[in-house]
């Protein structure tokens, strides 16, 4: 067997140019598929990270309350019900974050102003958020001031403010009244890529809640960071089941389910209010997960994966047709040689195996080159730092594109490649093995 392998290896080096061209074609195909797979895998993780940071967790609970006038406002009124519903899943939760959110707000400094989404957070609980934010000016210590606000660099630059400056925020209360709050810039953070595509500021939940017209201690959203991100759908289902026992859930009414997808994707981003067609009593809860929010993005990634797989198969098919033709030529070139080695005792299966090994070595060498090039491409692509204001913010993690090379994914690609190689070479190899010794020796080319 070793001799066969040696002969196969030697045969590759006999026609260097042809081998290099064939190997390059294989390498190109492998390079493209590994790069695309690395990009989509990285994109998926980047988006998960971005949305988790932006939304403040993996499972999100929000509530809607109907005012006497019939207007629906976003707030959680029955906190006891929610606290009770959380107890059976307490072991699954790493951190609980309560938040408020200014739907439409404008931040003003002198004659400059810009729109800004502001989250009211409890700084003592939001340890992960603090980890995500990199302070460029000021410090987190300043956040002990209840009127302190954390601004992303992009907003601070636009307003030309520094830590310690006083700014105004114009917003609407949950009932729709206009309001203004005085804030002091406590810290300016780098747009951490995580959410540079949405300019979000952070303020103390007590003060923001007061400006939004929430009752003392009131909040609008509860976000759960789970110990295991893969359990989010299970935890969300358990929480829904618990809440359904004592409260209203959005999915329980047909008019809610009709518009569910839209509400899930938009509910957190907008703070608008509408009038209830059929008013209800108490808080109507809704429980959504990171997967719900990311559903359109995951769909996009799935499509991208399909496209890259199709591209890989097309490239591979073209390469394999090239491989098939090459080995047909090889068969013609080496007919007499095959006759000779068969005459001195080589078996048919050994002749076939020489062809198989030769093709496999060629593909493996091409795959190795493609893999190395792809890893270099990933390293170079991942090292590029994009501007903080880049329109690609949603695809960036810390202002870089993230590539993830998955070992099982790469192994799968190589296995597919080798199988297709064997299929492509099968016919010439079989013909070579079936050559009659006398006929082969008589052949003149």
């Amino acid at each position, binding site marked *: 067997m070793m001799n066969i392998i040696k002969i196969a290896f030697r045969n590759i080096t006999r026609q260097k140019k042809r081998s290099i061209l064939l190997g390059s074609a294989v390498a190109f195909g492998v390079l493209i598929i590994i790069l695309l797979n690395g990009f989509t895998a990285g994109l998926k993780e980047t988006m998960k990270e971005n949305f988790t940071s932006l939304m403040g967790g993996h499972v999100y609970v929000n509530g809607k309350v109907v005012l006497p006038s019939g207007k629906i406002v976003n707030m959680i009124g029955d906190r006891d019900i929610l606290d009770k519903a959380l107890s059976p899943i307490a072991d699954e939760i790493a951190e609980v974050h309560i938040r408020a959110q200014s739907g439409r707000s404008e931040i003003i400094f002198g*004659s400059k102003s810009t729109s800004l989404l502001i989250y009211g957070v409890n700084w003592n609980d939001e340890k992960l958020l603090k980890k995500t934010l990199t302070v460029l000016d000021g410090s987190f210590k300043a956040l002990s001031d209840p009127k302190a606000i954390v601004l992303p660099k992009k907003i601070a630059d636009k307003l030309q403010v520094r830590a310690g400056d006083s700014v*105004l925020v114009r917003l609407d*209360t949950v009932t729709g009244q206009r309001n203004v709050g005085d804030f002091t810039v406590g810290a300016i953070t780098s747009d951490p890529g995580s959410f540079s595509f949405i300019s979000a500021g952070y303020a103390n939940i007590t003060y923001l809640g007061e400006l939004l017209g929430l009752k003392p201690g009131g909040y609008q959203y509860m976000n759960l960071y789970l110990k295991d991100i893969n359990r989010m759908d299970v935890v969300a289902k358990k929480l829904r089941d618990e809440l359904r026992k004592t409260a209203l859930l959005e999915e329980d009414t047909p008019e809610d389910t009709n518009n569910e997808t839209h509400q899930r994707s938009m509910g957190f981003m907008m703070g608008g209010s509408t009038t209830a067609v059929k008013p209800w009593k108490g808080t109507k809860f809704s429980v959504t997960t990171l997967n719900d929010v990311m559903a359109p993005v995951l769909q996009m990634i799935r499509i991208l994966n399909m496209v890259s797989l199709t591209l890989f198969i097309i490239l591979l098919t073209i390469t394999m047709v090239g491989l098939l033709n090459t080995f047909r030529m090889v068969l013609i070139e080496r007919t007499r040689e095959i006759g000779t080695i068969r005459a001195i005792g080589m078996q048919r299966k050994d002749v076939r195996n020489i062809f198989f090994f030769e093709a496999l070595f060629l593909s493996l060498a091409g795959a190795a080159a493609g893999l190395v090039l792809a890893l270099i491409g990933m390293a170079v692509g991942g090292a590029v730092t994009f501007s903080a204001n880049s329109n690609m913010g949603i695809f960036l993690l810390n202002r870089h594109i993230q590539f993830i090379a998955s070992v099982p994914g790469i192994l799968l690609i190589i296995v597919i490649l080798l199988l297709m190689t064997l299929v492509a070479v099968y016919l010439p190899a079989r013909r070579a093995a079936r050559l009659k010794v006398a006929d082969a020796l008589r052949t003149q080319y």
Partner: protein
Amino acid sequence: MKKKIGLLTAALLLTGVLSAGALTTAKAEAILGDLDASRNFSNTDFSAVMTMVTEDPEKGIDKIKVQQFRRDGKDTFLMLFLEPESKKGQGYLRINDNLWFYDPESRKFNHTSMKDSFGGTDAKHSDFRISTLKEDYNVKTVADGKLGRFSVYIMDLKAKNSEVTYPRLKLWITREGHLLLKAEDYSATDRLMRTSLFPKYAKVKNRYIATIMIFVDELVKGRKTQISIANISTKKLPDTIFTKSYVERVNR
């Protein structure tokens, strides 16, 4: 000397009491009703061309011209942009308690809020619909005063519920004719947010209509909008004007 100071203090206090008591709350609320009636066109339609000039310290000066159609009896209006060319054909249509924004490029209607600013100006959509001061506010205090050469009532109003856009208003209303000359809008934290001035009125069919309105943003230094109204008409408008199909058709 002490006696003189005492007399002066007493006189000032008496003046204050008199001025504060110059108008009863009931009379003040009746004036608010008059003001609503003079600003609303319950029995007729209303159309006019409005020119809005916004001065913004960052964006500079922006001018837009809008054709306004109002039917206050049904709390309906249509505002069609005439200028600039980039906004021509856009429109805001209020029907059935909904405010729609039409963009001729996408040919779509999008839902928007009455509390949003109108076309990036300091005016709100709610500034162009029916006035409901009497319905929305209680009169907290009334005082006599002067605004330029006009004798005015200065009324401090408090919103009746937490859903009224501005929780507190301060109005300067002429004693004669009960015309609104100035208004200040305050936030829930009682900060002055916007000052509105109405320096010029025109008489149209026995009622006075403000033909110049100035809205000053008190939070963003240097930002203000002046609105001039021309081509005023109170003739009946076709019902078709207040429909989505009209807004689409007028753009073809």
